């Protein structure tokens, strides 16, 4: 099951847990399942149906250009990163 690392500023929504294991074959599905496990997370990560402008997602160590469509494997690590302008585009 993929492991989602929860940024410190969102851990109030996960009961203090820094990582959560949830199913999902894409980042979008992972967020859907994350929302079921920890209500409120989706709103913090997404603006309607896209990642918020200053948030990037990294799968297995690399910020993905595919965003929500990026495939996620059973052993993948998923990180949501504050991507304030400069050098790393929030795609």
């Amino acid at each position: 099951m993929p492991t989602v690392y929860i940024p410190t500023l969102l851990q109030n929504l996960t009961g203090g847990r820094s990582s959560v294991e949830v199913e999902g074959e894409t980042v979008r599905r992972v967020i859907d399942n994350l929302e079921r496990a920890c209500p409120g997370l989706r709103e913090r990560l997404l603006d309607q149906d896209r990642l918020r402008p200053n948030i990037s997602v990294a799968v297995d160590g690399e910020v993905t250009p595919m965003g929500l469509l990026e495939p996620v494997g059973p052993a993948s690590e998923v990180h949501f990163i504050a991507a304030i302008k400069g050098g790393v585009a929030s795609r």
Partner: protein
Amino acid sequence: MKTQEYTVVGTRPIRHDGADKVTGRAQYGADFQMAGLLHGHILRSPHAHAQIRSIDTSKAAKLPGVKAIITADDFPQGPDRMVDLGEGDTPLSYARGNVLAKGKALYRGHAVAGIAAISAHVAEEAAGLIEVDYEVLPCVLTAPEAMREDAPVLHADLKTKEFGEQTGRTSNIAEHFRHEMGNIETGFAEADVIVEREFHTATVHQGYIEPHNTTALWNNDGRILIWCSTQGSFVVRDVTACILDVPVSQVKVTPMEIGGGFGGKIPVYLEPVAAMLSRKTGKPVKIVMSRKDVFEGTGPTPGSYIKVKIGSRKDGRITAAQAYLAYEAGAYPGAMVGPGGMCVFAAYDIANVVIDGFDVVVNKPSTAAYRAPGATNAAFATETVVDEIAEKLGIDPLEFRLKNAAKEGTRRADGPKYRRIGCVEVIEAMKNHPHYSAPLGGPNRGRGVAVGFWFNIGLPSSCTISVNADGTVNLVEGSTDIGGTRTSIAMQAAEVLGISAADVHPTVVDTDSVGFTAVTGGSRTTFATGWAAYEAAQDIVRQMKERAAKLWETEAASVELERGLFRSGDKAMSFADLAAKLESTGGPVVGRGAVNPRGVGGSFSGNIVDVEVDPETGKVTILRFTAVQDAGKAIHPSYVEGQMQGGSVQGIGWALNEEYYMNRDGAMTNSSLLDYRMPTALDLPMIDTVIVEVANPGHPFGVRGVGEANIIPPPGAIANAIYRAAGVRMNRLPMNPPAIMQAIWNQRD
């Protein structure tokens, strides 16, 4: 991956644009001419913070020769939305507001109106006749000042965000983020030595020699044609289209040659203004900035306030590290504090880390990227503290870094684990370099070291390649050439095709003539556009094999290409001979490559620097400087060395002299190259370079990207060298003579 595995990659062919550049025939934006050309000028705010009550253009409009004047009210005022500025998204209202101020001027130099006239002189004279009624407001110029609760507020609608949450607090803090790993209290409790220091770094400019320029024609057919100096023609297209509220297909951008950018020519400043003036006049309008405009009206890199605390055991193992980064975004949110947070401890494997970052608006020009944006500020702090800890523990500074060096599998505090990286190899190369053990040879001299990391980026790139009947190929690409990228991209295609680099003719084309290509920035061009060229060349090889198979009446699968020779069984034909037969075997062969690659590999760099400090004046002389960097694979080693030398020199300038010298009213008082002191060849020794090649497994040739990491270590390395020469630990950039003398006097007191 070793150089000898390749015939083209790793060699040093003459650059394709070299003849035009050295003979002065290369066409830059300011050279551009058209029939009926008008000249534009930008009126800029004389105040750092002011309400704009009214703008009266009537007198200026009556000046003979003036053809049109526009203000922010001339732009379409559609609903706000996010737009991609090339290295990150921003609200359209901010992008539009920075091009022409609406309601409020947020920094001295903020564009207020645009004028088109028959000459640049008439346009400038007209600007002086525009009457702007300002209500001057108190300004705020540094992050710590702007973060105070009683600070003047720049944007009444700006609320602090914390990872997607609007806190509802109106302030100059646009965003706060935190990266956290392990347990920071436990980590510091395990430490035998803890060092905590505060740092201030000044606002500095990229200092490209060519000022911003543009020519725009709003054509009769509705299309907007732009010729400009930019790092991203598609960014200019997309942002201009957003601001003018037209479809992107209505804008065509032709990138001219570029006289430097370093990140500062990603933002759009002039194009929407020139286009709107062209629409009003029916003529093409050219605008060229002065150096003062460049300093006061375009994005420098952020000044910053940083606190770093690091703890280590006696055995030299770092147990905990904490950073507080407050970066000045300038007038609009978007400081480079995000990358600063990613890079601040990136060279080290540390179990317990907390990093807080703050994006703070101030009354200075809206900041832009500058070579590894945000990382140099952060590394200056980290590398100084690391050096002090190593000294306290009596451990050699490179040995201390090696003990703690990040490696494959190390998790960075912002989350991801490293894949194959070259941090250890870079530090070992520094340790083994003769410079590190050479005698200093005199009094008041010291040697310092530092390392830095930049993650590099991917993003989309496109190329096409067509085969000529003489066996050469034409390569069409969308990456503006900075630092010889035409050649480094062409070489990757040549390697695949088995032909020489000289037989690849690369052309950088307009936005109508190639698929979307992201900015030349983020150290991505040789990596990503090179990959697109690799894919296009592979497409050519596939088609050429089919042609050979047709000639030889065999299966394409049986045809091999090796070093420019197609073979199948006992038959063989050179690439050039087969190219001559394309017409008779089916017609032209055109290959395409379009990528949005993963596999980006970060680059580590390191410096060894010797300085001499004059104890009477505080002047620092760089005696010797060695730059080491992991290139992954150096496609063209000369251009890699050029990047390393260029980044090092910019880092030296940042370290020793460069700064926006601001008065209390928020005016930059040194906005000329006479007073903004960049290093020249007379200030510097030859920069020695050592290319380390730890291949990036994510790229066909192992490329990592080398444009940025080299600027990161110089300030830290020079600060550490100054300490050993003069006995003072510097915590402020620039470390100019007054700052060093003050530090020496403070220590005496």
